[in-house]
């Protein structure tokens, strides 16, 4: 079976040439996904796409089932970081979240849990609410890319499950995160 593998930097243009199977970012709507989900999965299995290889320092983009476990694939990145007291998905992470959204749209049996976290500053319950909003922001972006509500669950832990304990700015930035857990 051939894989459809796109170079990260070429993904959009290739997708445009290959519009029957993979729509470009702006072209996918929820109804498209519902109507064509099976066709898209078939397209992947047919494998009439391009082979690709990672650019130096780049990551592969493939939405094939199980691609989330490939360390070479962009989908192996599953952490989204946030600015202080913000629930907006930053520019550095929008593409990553979109890739995961597309993965979910192409793999309708896949599901994901988004775990929202906050740093230790401020009040605990407010941080739980803030971290839920972070996870909801990620979820909305995934849904925009064709994932469905049923595929995505959200849980917020606020500041209760830190991963870095230094108390410095770096540690706190590592704790302001949404973990994408398949």
């Amino acid at each position: 079976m051939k894989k459809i593998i796109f170079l990260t930097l070429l993904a959009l243009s290739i997708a445009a040439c290959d519009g029957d199977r993979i729509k470009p970012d702006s072209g996918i709507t929820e109804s498209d996904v519902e109507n064509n989900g099976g066709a898209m999965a078939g397209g992947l299995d047919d494998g009439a796409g391009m082979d690709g290889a990672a650019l130096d320092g780049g990551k592969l983009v493939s939405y094939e089932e199980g691609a989330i476990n490939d360390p070479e694939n962009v989908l192996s990145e599953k952490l989204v970081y946030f600015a202080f007291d913000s629930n907006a998905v930053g520019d550095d992470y929008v593409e990553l979240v979109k890739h995961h959204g597309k993965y979910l749209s192409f793999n309708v049996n896949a599901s994901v849990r988004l775990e929202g976290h906050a740093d230790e500053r401020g009040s605990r319950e407010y941080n739980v609410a803030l971290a839920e909003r972070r996870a909801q922001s990620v979820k909305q972006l995934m849904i925009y890319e064709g994932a469905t509500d049923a595929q995505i669950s959200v849980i917020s832990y606020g500041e209760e499950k830190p991963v870095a304990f230094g108390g410095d700015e770096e540690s706190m930035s590592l704790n302001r995160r949404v973990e994408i857990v398949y």
Partner: protein
Amino acid sequence: MINMIKKIIVGLFCLSFASMAQAVLKIDITEGFEGALPIAVIPFKWIGAAKEINGDVSSIVLSDLARSGKYLHVDENDLIDMPHDSPDVQYRSWRSAGMDYIVSGSVTLKTDGKYQVDFRLIAILKGKQVLGYSFSATSETLSNVAHQISDYVFTHITGLPGAFNTRIAYVTVQRSKTGSTSRLQVSDTDGYNPQTLLTSDEPIMSPAWSPDGSQLAYVSFEGGQAEIFTHNVRSGVRKSRAKYKGLNGSPAWSPDGKQLAMTLSKDGNPDIYTLNLATNQLQRITDHWAIDTEAVWTPDAKAIIYTSSRSGKPQLYKQDVAANSRPERLTFEGAYNASASISADGKHIAYVNGEGNVYRIAVLELATRSSKILTDGPLDESPDFAPNNSMILFASQNNRKAVLSAVSVDGRQKQRLEFSDGEVREPSWAAARH
């Protein structure tokens, strides 16, 4: 996928028969103060028995009174005399030593194995005994008697309700390489005699005492999501009260104990609801796209005070508990004001004030709307008014370790309550001992 198997141990301890756990608490008086009443606590005389280490009545009273911020601590070495009965008091000497009150007493082991605790409060300026009580106690209840004496003394002199003979609840967390263990604990108000009500590998948050001191409401993630429970501390029986999709947080008892205010996001945004515990009827109080959370009830039960980000940053608001009532913004100074606790007399709100990277406990006087920052930070949180209106318990960090601290409402008296190990956070002080 999610490992849903969580180790949950629900404590079924009967707290009234609590074993005397070893002392785990160290109280540091971190800051001095002015204007407190000079009061001498004379070491009680032990008759027929050696002093019980965990029931050293006069030391417990001394520690309680010092913690209240209203009394000037007198070191045992500075006592000019140690009278154990009213006729022995040399009033003139005490007066010239600048003392206003003396607490004295004795502990007598009786033939039936019980203790008789006698105590007297002597007003030096009045030249007479103003309080005198005799208690019966066992070695297990000596510390309770001591806290009761503290309450009598505190109430007599200040006119405020005493709250030393109740309990505090708090959450401890111990971290290991494989994860962390959270415990919901209950202890005497000085941190002694801790009991564990709940142990979990998942977070436990936001313990809150019912007004009668019989139950705790809290949030537990033991079931793989946030869930609000109420837990009877005497029987160990607990009930799930909210397990909706999304947030289930910030439980707060109404003053009559019949409702819980809580934060739910089941309808899309974090909003505040009230739950009638008898009928399970849920009423939505706030409806806004912003974060609304951390509700507390005013003592008259007519309104709630809560944190909302509707202005862009978290600030405190007050709103009547009625449909379509309008919120009133309470805080304007500082970019971050959250996590309100209201005093039992309804006059003050303690809250977290954040500026830059520094988070401190502040107090707002509702009548004048004037606010004052009480602590130094940098990561102070979870303020909780003591039922005597005069102290605020809060969580802080000391050398990157989470500890509990207390500050008097005027900010003059600060104390650190340091537990032996683990992180200690989210204190809640019961208004009554059930």
